[in-house]
């Protein structure tokens, strides 16, 4: 490990102009990913985690969007690069796996073609037999049986899990430094989910690729990652190692998320105890702390919670953005935990 992180994100803001107003999908997000590391970003839908992931590859598009802040890949600011320079890094340095393997594969081409394409884009001089070998190898590596035969099949001829394996194969065909997996298991059956996570872990170990795993599922985070970034309302609210988050969450929202996971564990399926209320509208974020309306510890009318946005500050082994006094927070959280 070097001192320079593989990926350094600083003050990333992404906003969209919509007919209803400006949406600040991502607001002052900063984090690092080191080489070979597995980092998780967790949050409800609308928390800005997917937008963050897309911003890392400059995939957010549209005339009404603006991105500020810096994304340094190996010390190079992606924002300062030309579109063509970014394109050359896509798939080669950073690869991506999407949520829905059903729609992520182009239905009109065979899977072999698609894997081959991912390789060819960055190896334009590669000859046919070489490409073929690469395709067969990478399909085999992600566990597609009989890859020589199956490479001619079309996406619709595979199951969801198999398709996600193919997407992963495609992502890894150029041995990227960073793999962004955006909800890679959400659309899959529970049994298949485990297999895919296992695959990602295995590959990460084999190739030393850093993985940024984006999910709403803390269970997935617990199994796979080393460090967790918790997002809410477009901001990072907590960042810490997996162990410390699970053992000692320092933000009421993280606590809520853990609550929903634990209740699932104890009470079984169906009685998921969600955090009361719903995620905030990004157009009309509440003043002050975005989580205040749903927070059971909020300090009430006229307090800081209602007037100023809490900043991320070091709490224990991690960082957290909350106005509650640290000691008070620990007391409250432990009480609930117990």
């Amino acid at each position, binding site marked *: 490990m070097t001192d320079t992180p593989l990926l350094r994100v600083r003050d990333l803001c992404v906003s969209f102009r919509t007919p209803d107003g400006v949406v600040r999908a991502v607001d002052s997000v900063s984090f690092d990913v080191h080489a070979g590391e597995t980092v998780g970003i967790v949050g409800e839908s609308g928390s800005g985690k997917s937008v963050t992931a897309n911003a890392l590859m400059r995939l957010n598009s549209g005339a009404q969007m603006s991105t500020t802040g810096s994304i340094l890949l190996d010390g190079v600011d992606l924002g300062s690069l030309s579109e063509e320079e970014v394109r050359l*890094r*896509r798939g080669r340095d950073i690869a991506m796996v999407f949520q829905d393997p059903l729609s992520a594969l182009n239905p*009109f081409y065979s899977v072999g073609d698609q894997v081959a394409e991912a390789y060819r884009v960055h190896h334009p001089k590669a000859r046919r037999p070489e490409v073929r070998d690469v395709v067969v190898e990478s399909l085999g590596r992600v566990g597609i049986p009989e890859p020589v035969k199956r490479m001619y099949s079309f996406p619709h001829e595979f199951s969801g899990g198999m398709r996600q394996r193919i997407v992963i194969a495609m992502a890894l065909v150029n041995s990227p430094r960073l793999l962004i997996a955006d909800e890679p298991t959400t659309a899959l059956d529970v049994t298949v989910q485990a297999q895919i996570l296992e695959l990602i872990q295995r590959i990460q170990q084999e190739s030393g690729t850093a993985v940024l795993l984006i999910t709403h599922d803390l269970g997935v985070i617990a199994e796979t990652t080393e460090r967790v970034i918790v997002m809410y309302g477009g901001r990072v609210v907590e960042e810490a190692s997996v162990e410390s988050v699970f053992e000692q969450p320092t933000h009421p929202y993280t606590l809520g998320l853990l609550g929903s996971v634990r209740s699932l564990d104890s009470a079984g399926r169906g009685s998921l105890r969600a955090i009361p209320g719903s995620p905030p509208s990004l157009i009309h974020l509440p003043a002050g702390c975005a989580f205040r309306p749903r927070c059971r510890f909020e300090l009430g009318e006229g307090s800081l919670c209602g007037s100023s946005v809490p900043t991320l500050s070091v709490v224990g082994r991690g960082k957290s953005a909350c106005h509650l006094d640290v000691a008070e927070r620990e007391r409250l959280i432990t009480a609930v935990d117990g």
Partner: protein
Amino acid sequence: MLYFILRRTVFAVVLLLAVSLCTYVLFSALPSDPAALTCGKNCTTEVIERNRVRLGYDKPILEQYGLFMEGIVKGRTYGPGEAAVHCPAPALGYSFKRHQCVTALISRSLPVTISVSVGAFVLWMLLGVGLGVLAALKRGRWQDRVATGFSVIGISLPTFFVALLAVLIFTVWWPVLDFPSYTGILTNPWKWAKALVLPWSTLAVVSASTYVRMTRNGVIEVMSEEFVRLGLAKGVRRSVLIVKYVLRAALVPIVTIAGLDFAALLGGAVITESVFNLPGVGKLAIEAVVDSDLPVLVATTLVAAAFIVLANAVVDVCYGFLDPRVREG
């Protein structure tokens, strides 16, 4: 796949037979007496009856249909004595209004209609799809507004009006072109194209509008598809992405509609052919209506129906090639 094609062909043939029977019976059921229509202005009942027997209109409809089908296979002779006329197979009837075998009339009109259709089709697809893609890629910008505006204007202008205006502008008021007069492509390709420029453009302008909108919407929809984003994430060039990913997917539904539109055009571009004086199937049909020329009417209807049935089959097969997902179906 082979089985798919075979099944589709058999279905098309059966459908064509049914359509021909329906057409024949329907037209025979019209209140106008086909025998009376063969007779001049000084007509007597005696002549009408004689013509009825001569043309077989005295027989039951199904028997007439049988004779009609027999004529298609074996050819047919109309009229007695020295004045009899023979139409070789496939005989679709004899037009007493035009004094020619219907098959000859059709086979003379078809190249005209095909010339009009193919050129117009190519032009309108290029225009429609091109502008549609442009509008989708430049969504919300001036290019989009121009293309969308063009589409609205094209849709709201009647073909007749555009055609007439085109002729007046380019051949009378600002005579850069001759008044269109069809020349066979084999006779003189340059004259052929020159005569068809206006009809092609007219049809293209009027018909492309729908395609601008369809393509624009299709492209915008496909652009938001996950696989396109993944393609981008793979590092595929934007231009390649648009052709290989976006257009490919967006065009599949357009092919279906385009196929049927093209078939309808082959059945006769009635208005365009009339205004531009192109003696194609559409003009033949409209004149048959005006003249109450029943045999020609039946034949042109059949030709148009045949094109639709054929196009449906072709589109289905094409669809199978285009979209791997329907192949098994």
